[in-house]
């Protein structure tokens, strides 16, 4: 399982990288952490004529606080850096919680935040989490910058708004609103496998303790992350209770998703997992939201 031949560039600046991408277009692939791309090359499922290695572009790796108290991440920031960063733990605890569940330690040594987003695997935690956190992605090309909200960025399986000559360079996350709790629930056969089904949730309570906003994003249920809009509508303004969570979970399971069957799970089993995990995610999120209030 050896990779096919390719022309190789390893620029040290974003500008250089963009020049290569502009020149080669569809023939080129950006190489970030390589933990998804290189297996595909080894299987010869992908055979790009040109590989643009981003690993020497220091500018793309950073974790900073934004002016409004949110988070600003460089696309080449590695998972292990995100995992161990106190700023992330403080500003985006949902990401901090997800990290140990993303693949294995060895994969996280190399894998990058931006790489995971650009790859857009429907089973990827960070894809769903970025939607739940209302992240914004900055894409750069020689023509300029485009920005997309996470919920508008993912178009289908392994497909995003990225044009061939564009690079995802930065991710910004808004600050967590007050009285907000979060949860990541997933079921996988083995701890580091892709989830059979997963839920990333963010729930904000108002002063009365009712649900002001709920962003429930399901992953591994189809072609991409799915925001549970009907469940959200059900939860809006309601007082949290086990019955409410159960009802919302049922709605998510039966109305918000149309899961696929594959060799690992049937559609009906996936619905069952959506039902269970959504309920658990709501319980955890609200619990945490209450804790943040105190």
């Amino acid at each position: 399982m050896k990779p096919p031949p390719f022309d190789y560039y390893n620029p040290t600046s974003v500008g250089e990288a963009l020049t290569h991408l502009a020149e080669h277009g569809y023939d080129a692939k950006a190489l970030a952490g390589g933990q998804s791309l290189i297996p595909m090359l080894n299987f010869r499922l992908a055979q790009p004529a040109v590989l643009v290695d981003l690993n020497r572009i220091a500018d793309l790796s950073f974790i900073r606080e934004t002016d409004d108290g949110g988070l600003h991440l460089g696309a080449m920031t590695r998972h292990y850096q995100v995992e161990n960063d106190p700023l992330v733990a403080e500003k985006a605890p949902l990401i901090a919680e997800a990290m140990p569940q993303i693949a294995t330690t060895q994969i996280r040594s190399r894998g990058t935040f931006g790489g995971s987003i650009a790859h857009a695997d429907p089973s990827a935690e960070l894809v769903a989490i970025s939607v739940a956190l209302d992240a914004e992605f900055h894409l750069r090309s020689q023509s300029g910058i485009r920005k997309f909200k996470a919920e508008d960025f993912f178009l289908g399986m392994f497909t995003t708004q990225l044009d061939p000559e564009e690079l995802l360079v930065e991710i910004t996350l808004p600050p967590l609103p007050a009285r907000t709790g979060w949860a990541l629930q997933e079921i996988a056969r083995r701890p580091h496998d892709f989830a059979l089904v997963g839920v990333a949730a963010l729930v904000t309570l108002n002063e009365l303790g009712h649900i002001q906003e709920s962003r429930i994003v399901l992953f591994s249920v189809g072609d991409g992350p799915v925001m549970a809009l009907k469940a959200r509508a059900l939860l809006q303004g309601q007082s949290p209770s086990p019955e409410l969570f159960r009802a919302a979970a049922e709605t998510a399971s039966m109305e918000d998703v149309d899961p696929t069957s594959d060799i690992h799970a049937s559609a009906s089993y996936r619905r069952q997992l959506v039902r269970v995990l959504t309920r658990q995610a709501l319980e955890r999120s609200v619990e945490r939201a209450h804790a943040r209030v105190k």
Partner: protein
Amino acid sequence: MRKYIGERIKRNEDPRLLTGQALFVDDVDLPGMLHAAFLRSDYAHAKLLSIDITQALQRPGVVAIYTAELMGDEWQPGPPNVSPPATVEDITFHSRTQVPLAKDKVRHVGESIAIVIAENRYIAEDAVEDILVEFEPLEVVADIEKALEPGAPLVHDDLPSNLACHMVQGRGDYLAARASADVIIQRKIDIDRGAAAAMENRGIVANWDAKSQHLTIWDTTQAPIPIRNGVAARLGLNQSQVRVIAPFIGGGFGPKMMMHYPEEILIPWISVKLGKPVKWIEDRRENFFATTQERRQVHDAEILLTKDGKILGLSHKFLHDSGAYDPYGLTIPLNTESHACGAYDIPNYYSDLTVVFTNKMYTTPIRGAGRPQGIFLIERMLDIAARELNMDPLELRMRNLIPPEAFPYDREIIDQAFALLTFDSGNYRPAIEKAAEMIDYQHFIQHEGPRLRAEGKTVGIGIIPFVETTGVGPYEGARITIEPSGKVNVATGVGTQGQGHFTSFAQIVAEQLGVDILDINLVTGDSADFHWGTGTFASRGAVVAGNAIHASAIRVREKVLKLASKLLETPEEELELEDGFVRVADVPRLSISLGDLAAEANPLRGAVEPGTEPGLEATAYFGPKSGATAFGVHAMILEVDPETLMVEIKRYVVVEDCGTVLNPLILDGQVHGGVAMGIGNAYYEQLIFDENAQLLNASLADYLIPTACEVPRIEVAHLETRSPLNPLGTKGAGEAGAIPVPALFAQALENAFAAQGLEILEMPLSPNRLFELLKEKESDV
């Protein structure tokens, strides 16, 4: 004298393995070595209309390409690994063996069509993509039941159907028993395919040295000597011109016992043709298509009992999936038959076996080798019978165990060794009682289980006794030599894939010769060092090679004593062997080192007594009359999340009786590893094919091997019922861990979902499948 057998001695071979200094096949590096890659079929069944290699040959770095056509007269199928038994009447058997490269048509996804030889593997794989093949896809035989329907497409066009073998055998008078039975239970049992998936994929390096007319082969095989013999025969060489080395092997588990794989014939052949060393290393993706698999069977089973729970008979009509070829004969289904009556005294048995060709990779034994299927069968039927009879499942089993006084116990059927199956020895009840005690079985059934269920937990317990036929012949041999340095060399024909032979076999020698383990140098798997033997398979290494080593060590000891007696002028009875010396008992200063003794035994000058053999060396062989039957009991408590159907094993207990234990540390390791594989086979691993026999999960991301988070801590206890069949009293244990696990899972899950009336008649399972089965049950109600 110090005892070595039975001691938890650390392994000799560890330091090299731990520091990356152990040679595996892919580590072999020879000047001018070329690399091979295969073009393998993407179709499960298709005619090969044309193969165009011109473009591929033009790629720089490509040295040669071969197809079946280009092999000319030197292309031939086979050889087969195992012949069908001649001793059973009315057997139909069609032998169809694997081919080096596909000719005319391909019969399974992954069958090799062409081989590219290039300067490195990267280029070879590039060139594989340059090869243009015209296929005419044919209808696919993917299902073993549909394969036998009239009008089904034929895997082998020269046969009237996809029937590879039909064989009937039994014992007693099943129909008479049926007429008198109070309870008759019928079920259809469905078991699906899995892979061995050793961490090291297969590989071969062949080096033909034209000047010395000698061929050296490194092969990840469990059977280096038969490979040597087969390759020599195929290439028209003398056996002495061929050396096969099975160095350190990264796990065998059965498929590396298959011989001769197409690659094992091709790579040496090409080396001779090109006069250059050639290396082929299987990659993981290939391993799913090019290395054998196992386990698919469908049984229509029936059990007969009295109302008091005495089993009167068991019968099963079953289909066994052989895949595209049947080089391994009937080994697996015969093992299934040998174990279909489990540990029980069942006077009437009837089996009707049909082996079926399908367009899938051919099947050869994987750890358990058909035994798990037999145990699954009987244990399922017993659990269902227990419910029907309203009896405790354990009590039902106890009532039917073969009692200790019945040994040797004849099953009266033919087993995989082509002989009538006899269980040599056994004492099953204490093993079951011990396992039950270790897991607090009664306490769980009466108190703990109900208490946990009242708390809302879904918990289940299982306890499964099993037997394991081991230690089959034909034979193995060993040569032991004491060197003038005092070090002892042991050479034997079996290979090693992690079982610790270097240590456990050394213990057998140390016990006789009083030498430290570290001074015993063991060579396994090198035909230049020892060229008689069959290989490591069927849990026979310790029994057969171990006993050959034991016999050889005794002979060397005799020579030592005889010569030392002469030199020390002391009768043999007063001599002892300790710490590498021969000493006069109670007179320590009257001694001679084994090394010096060896030097004395090999004089450069002078006269010797006629008939004297030089040195302190002996060769001995051991061939058991029949296999020794080990047994054991596994018990488990599991908890299921009723919403997600994810399973957690809370406790796992093993009682193992494999006769004399050579090294408990090594034995425990074998048990743990076997259980881990069994857990995989029960709840994680399944080769998933679609209706075109395309494998859908050909990667380790999708074929789920248990990790450290899926395998629990396993508590192991040992009992020792010595085998009367060999001087060491030992039985095999290599496969034991894996054998009862699927049956155990089924029982424990049924116990957990007893309220829902869950009945499990298939393996493997998964949370998804469990969910479906429970839903089906729900909608039945």
